[in-house]
């Protein structure tokens, strides 16, 4: 119990970030019209592509060939997620804007 409390106190900033981010996530899309569900899902999909930052860090840190190779693949996959996600979302939203 004491250990748990110590760990919680030590990581309190992290815990704040987690809790506040969850609330922000819920709040931000709270009143979305159904019409925008699909573009929003796609937009959120692009944003979790931020995982590419982790892949780049791996490549900058690694000292093994296996790490380089896997990191290389990971960066490609992450880029696909980011670029594809944002472009598809933009294409969807472009259609909404055009009329009128």
């Amino acid at each position: 119990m004491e250990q748990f409390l110590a760990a919680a106190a030590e990581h309190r900033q992290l815990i704040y970030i987690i809790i506040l981010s969850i609330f922000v996530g819920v709040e931000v899309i709270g009143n979305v019209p159904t019409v925008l569900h699909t573009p929003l899902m796609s937009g959120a999909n692009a944003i979790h592509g931020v995982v590419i930052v982790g892949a780049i860090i791996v490549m900058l840190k690694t000292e093994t060939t296996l790490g380089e190779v896997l990191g290389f693949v990971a960066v490609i996959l992450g880029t696909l997620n980011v670029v594809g996600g944002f472009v598809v979302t933009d294409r969807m939203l472009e259609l909404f804007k055009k009329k009128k």
Partner: protein
Amino acid sequence: MASNLLEIVYLIASVTFIIGLKMMSNPKTARNGNLIGAVGMTLAIIGTIFLYDGGHEVSAITYVLIFGAIAIGTVIGWMSAKQVKMTKMPELVSLFNGMGGACAALIGLIEYPHAVETVEGFGALLCIVLGLLIGSVSFSGSIIAFMKLNGTLSKAIRLPSYNMLNNVFLVALFALAGYVLFGSDVPSYTIYALLAMSLGYGILFTIPIGGADMPVVISLLNSFTGLAAATGGFLYDNQAMQTGGILVGSAGTLLTLAMCKAMNRPLSNVIFGAFGETGKAVAGSASGIKGSIKDITISDAAILMNYAKKVIIVPGYGLAVAQAQHVIKELENILEERGVSVKYAIHPVAGRMPGHMNVLLAESNVDYDKLVEMEDINPEFAQTDVVLVVGANDVVNPAAKNDPASPIYGMPILDVEAAKHIIVNKRSMNAGYAGIENELFYDPKTSMLFGDAKDALSKLVTELKTL
């Protein structure tokens, strides 16, 4: 200096993600919101490449590899996103989601040996194992979802007592993860076993779920990938990954629940698929529906619509599959020229994803004001001469209101039966994905126009032109 600057870059990126998502929930600002998110992402990526301190001298080859990988990913991602047909878009979203999951899983795989060697503490190991597990499930699940939407895997595959099987598999997966976390002298290949089992679970999890429920599954897997990205953020103490990941995790979960609510089904029902089984039972009781099916010819349908004052079109899944969105716009134009008022009734779950139908119809330049949401259009059906239902079934099934035994009972539907005439375009008399009969088709006011949506609507347009 560099690392402080990088922290600021991550702060800016986190804020753009929040603002971007917020703006995306309003049709007016949505497009700019997406761009703002993209700008923040670009900043975070460039910042990481040039400002991150990896603890040792980084060779030029590494930079070449990083830029090479980004170039490859950008070209493929850009091309596929630009070229995909709007009807195929949900598949692509699912595929990109899978890529993100795979990326998170690979990070876990690469970092695992370091975490074990250097004993960076239990926290790091936990992040790695969770990232690997969630990322892999998201990857294989998304690929299955992609194949299902694509039609490669068209049938819901149900192994005997698959719920039981899945749960046993899940327990085994957690047990293995626990062993990797807490065991002493864990053999190095165990992490690959964990990877294989996680991939396997993603497949088992997704494969029994029917194609029409895929949007919910994709949304759920989307929030999984968000969580996987967040675990990477904890591992590297990286704020942009943390906020981005958790934000998508929570927003994605909420979006998943909103979709389930629109279909009036609890999430557990979608995942554990009680639908197929209850559907069969009800099909038996519903076969007692009295009345008979009435066919209508193209020319009769054309005449009926030509002399109507008000026509409401109910587009559904079948319209999307047949890619008939352009033909339906043509039909609208002709009718409007003849002075017929035309509107579209959009059910919240019409198409393959909520809002998918709006996107499809917007693509063929249907006026935004003509797309009316369910609550607003339902009172109008009573004053409508002809309702044209194109490839929709369960969203116009009166059983949702009348038959408490029906699996879709309680789902809000479009009250098309209030109209004077109903024309239903369907490929065949097969039941909808819920597997239940639709008594609307037996209504004396209803006539059936069998055939592929695109084909039937083109003929209808040709016929109307001759009138």
